[in-house]
Each structure stands twice: as C-alpha cells, then as structure tokens.
C-alpha cells in the first residue's frame, strides 16, 4: 500500500501557482491598450495562423498568453458562450463583464479541483462608445479577475513592458500611436540576441495586431468592431 504524504493546503496552492506562473513567464508578452479610436491588441507572435488574439463578439475581443491549446479552448468556449447568449437574448446583452466572470469561474474551478491548473493569462476587452466606457478585464490562472484602466500587459516580463508603457502610453493617442508604443514596449524587454549590440527589432511579421473600432457601424457599415491588421498595415504604422 502506498503512503499518502500530508501536504498542507497552503503548500499545495503555492506549488500550483508557482507551476502556472513558470509556464506563463516563458511566453511572449501581449499588450491590450485603450485609445481614442478604440482598443488595440498587440502580441508578439511569429505565427500568422496560431492566433493569441481573437474576436469573441460584436464589441468584445480576447487576448491570451500561455499554453496555446489551453487558451484556444477557452477562446472557443467564450465564443460559444457569447453566441448562445446573444442568440437567446439579444446581441446587446452580451457583455465583457459576463464573459469575464464565466472565465474567472472556470479558471478558478480548474485551479483548485483539476490535476493541473491552466497555464494561461487572459484579457477580455470591450470597446465602448466613449473611451470612458471601455472595459479591460485581466484574468489570471487562479481565477482572479481585475478591471484594469488604460492598458493590460500579460506574459513574460510584464514589469519591464509596464515601465515603458507608463511613459509612452497616452489616452489621447490614435491606433497608430498606441500600436507604436506597444511594439516599442515589447521590443524593450527582449533579451539581446547572442551578445549582438543593440536591441532586437520586432518586425511587423513578428507582431500580431488587431483592433476594436469604436464606431464600426459608421466607419465600415459593420456591427463587428474586431479587425485584424495585415502585415502591410502594421508595416505602415511602424514606419520602417
């Protein structure tokens, strides 16, 4: 008969949290920023098809860092939740707050009950008609939920990225401004490449960028605010 060793609940939770944090810290960062034109989502992602940023509903987007299979299943669950809700009530009744609390409950349940916590961190963003009505929710692996003003940074070296954004980000900027600020902040914390001098540049092909337009109905005649920017558009914005 095998002997079960006693592990205190504090130790168990700490071990799980450390495990999840380690997994997330290995990943590349994602930044979600509110600005005058809407909300911009910028991720360092070399893959053009395995997205870290996705559309959930008319005015709601999703961004994640961590294990792809885990956040992809959460993204799909979010799309299903939003579509069922919008279909059975009305499109207006789908809110980021509702979605974020469902995510928080699932992440919390998995963290305490499953054999392994999710190694992911999520952001749920909802663009409002005015900048003061934008909502950015940040969800961590243990189900904690935070309503962040202005911008959210997730992933590896969030302190360094946060530091840069604190000076570069400004509420009055347009999409081009915040995307440049985000790309600069993501570049800033990159480790130097094998001793080569200077920072490594993050080219447009290394960035995944999407935006939520504040008023998509009048600008594009579409109620869906989510729009992915092509490499050409990102190149134009970054200007090199």
């Amino acid at each position, binding site marked *: 008969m095998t002997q079960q060793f006693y592990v205190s609940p504090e130790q168990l939770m700490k071990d799980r949290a450390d495990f999840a944090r380690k997994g997330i810290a290995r990943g590349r960062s994602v930044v979600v920023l509110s600005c005058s034109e809407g909300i911009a989502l910028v991720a360092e992602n070399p893959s053009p*098809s395995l*997205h870290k940023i996705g559309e959930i509903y008319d005015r709601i987007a999703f961004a994640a860092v961590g294990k792809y299979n885990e956040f992809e299943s959460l993204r799909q669950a979010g*799309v299903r939740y939003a579509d069922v809700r919008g*279909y059975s009530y009305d499109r207006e009744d789908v809110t980021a707050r509702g979605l974020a609390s469902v995510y928080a409950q699932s992440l919390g349940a998995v963290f305490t009950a499953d054999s392994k916590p999710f190694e992911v961190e999520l952001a749920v963003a909802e663009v409002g008609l005015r900048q003061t009505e934008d909502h950015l929710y940040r969800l961590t692996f243990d189900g904690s939920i935070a309503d962040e003003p202005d911008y959210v940074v997730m992933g590896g070296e969030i302190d360094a990225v946060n530091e840069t954004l604190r000076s570069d980000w400004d509420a009055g900027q347009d999409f081009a401004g915040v995307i440049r600020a985000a790309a600069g902040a993501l570049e800033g914390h990159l480790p130097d490449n094998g001793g080569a001098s200077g920072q490594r540049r993050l080219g447009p092909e290394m960035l995944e960028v999407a935006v939520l337009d504040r008023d998509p109905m009048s600008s594009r005649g579409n109620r869906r605010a989510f729009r992915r920017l092509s490499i050409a558009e990102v190149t134009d914005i970054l200007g090199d």
Partner: protein
Amino acid sequence: MNLPAGGHSSTFSQISHAATASFSEYLSRSAPDLLPGRGSVTGITSNAEHLAPHATTIVAMTYAGGVIMAGDRRATMGNMIASRHIEKVFPADNYSVLGIAGTAGIALDVTRLFQVELEHYEKIEGTLLSLEGKANRLGAMIRSNLPMAMQGLAVIPLFAGFDTDRHMGRLFSYDVTGGRYEELEHHSVGSGSVFARGALKKLWKPNMDEDRAVSVAVESLYDAADDDSATGGPDIVRQLWPVVYAVNSAGAKRIPERVLAAAAEAVIASRAVAGREA
C-alpha cells in the same frame, strides 16, 4: 465500427465531438429548445397555416459581377394584411444574403440562427465558409423544420451569394425537405413567385449593371403585387419600397431607400404612361 483513435469513448473522440464549429450543432446538444421549429406540436394533423403571418414574394437574379435579391414588404394572415413593414431579405454574412418566404415567425428564427451559424464558424475557424458550405448548412436547417412544414408551417428560403473562389454570383433555392438546387440567371419564391418569374423571364438580360438589376427586381415585384393579393406593391402613401440587397466582390450592401423610391416611381410612371390594362 473501429475509429482510428480508439472508439467512441476514447479521449480523442470526446474531444473531437465537443469541438464543433457549427453553432446549430452545439445548440442541439446544449440547449435544443432554442432551435427554431423544435416545439413541433404532436397530434395535430390539421393545417396550422392560417394561425401565423406568412411572408411572401422574394426575387433574386445575377448581374454583371454579383447577385441581387429583393423582397416585398407584406406579411399576410389569411385574408388580412399582418404587416406592411416586414423585411424578408437579410444579409447572412459579408458575402451572402437570404430571403424567406413562408411562416414568418419560424423563418425569422431560421434567419437569425443561420446568421449566427456563419459568424460562429468564422470566429471558431478563423476563415469564412465556402458558398457551397453555407448553402448546405441552410439546407440542413430547413430539413430540421420538416415536421412543422408537414403541419403547414413551412419555410422556404432563397439564398444568394458571391463565390469568392469562382468570382461570380450564385443562387440557391430550397424545398421543404432541405433539398438544395442551384439556380441560373434568376429565381423567385413565395406566393407571388409565378408572376414575378414571368416578369423576370422578359426583363432579365445577361450582364446587366447594378442599377438595371435593381429596377428589374422592383418591376418584377410590382408585377407580382399586381396579381397576387399577398404581395405588397410599392406604397407611395407610406413611402415603403422593397428591401433590396446587392452582393458583389466588395460584399453585401443594402440598396438605399432613395434609389428604390426612384426605381419604383419610374416603374409606376412608365405603366401609367402606357395606359394599358397590364
């Protein structure tokens, strides 16, 4: 039957079962009562057709570079006009539109479900369904309404879209069993479809431009309204015109009211000038 990854109860089959890109399939598993036509009343064999408003005539045709679809604004219930304002042509997604004839309540639900179905697929898979794929999904939805159709609550859609692979507009018609038929040039469904179709046969020409296609659509609906009491003609008093959508390589767009008003007034004027019976 042996599945490659270890049968029905394997983790693989459970995962692949859960991972559907189809919204209606997901609903049928998780909330089947939300699907249209699921509350089929058993034990009633009589015709329930007179109980609910009916949507009437839809016409669609190809033109140079795309397709156009138009529907009149009337819904009837027996001999009564149930609505003068109803809209029966809807954008399904960026590159397709559908028009509905038949029991209005169920048809509007089917339309809503179909719109969510296409958007859901796009969000889950990250790519648009092919036009044929969309047409097949609509067929499956109409088939699931067959029990209601047997009781007289049938829904007959007309589906049109721009095929981004072949770079052309295409039309699909359906029967109550979900049978899907590709139509060439033009087609019409609903109570006034016989008359609209007659008009289309004379008015439709290959390679019409969009403006011409809009006026042909308006005129064929005018002819349908002339002979079918359930189809509404252009209403000058209330300023009500047909709902018309055009789909081309740039996407689906609704034709503005003022264009339709001009087209309808031109048809009425030309008929009045001719001063003939029909």
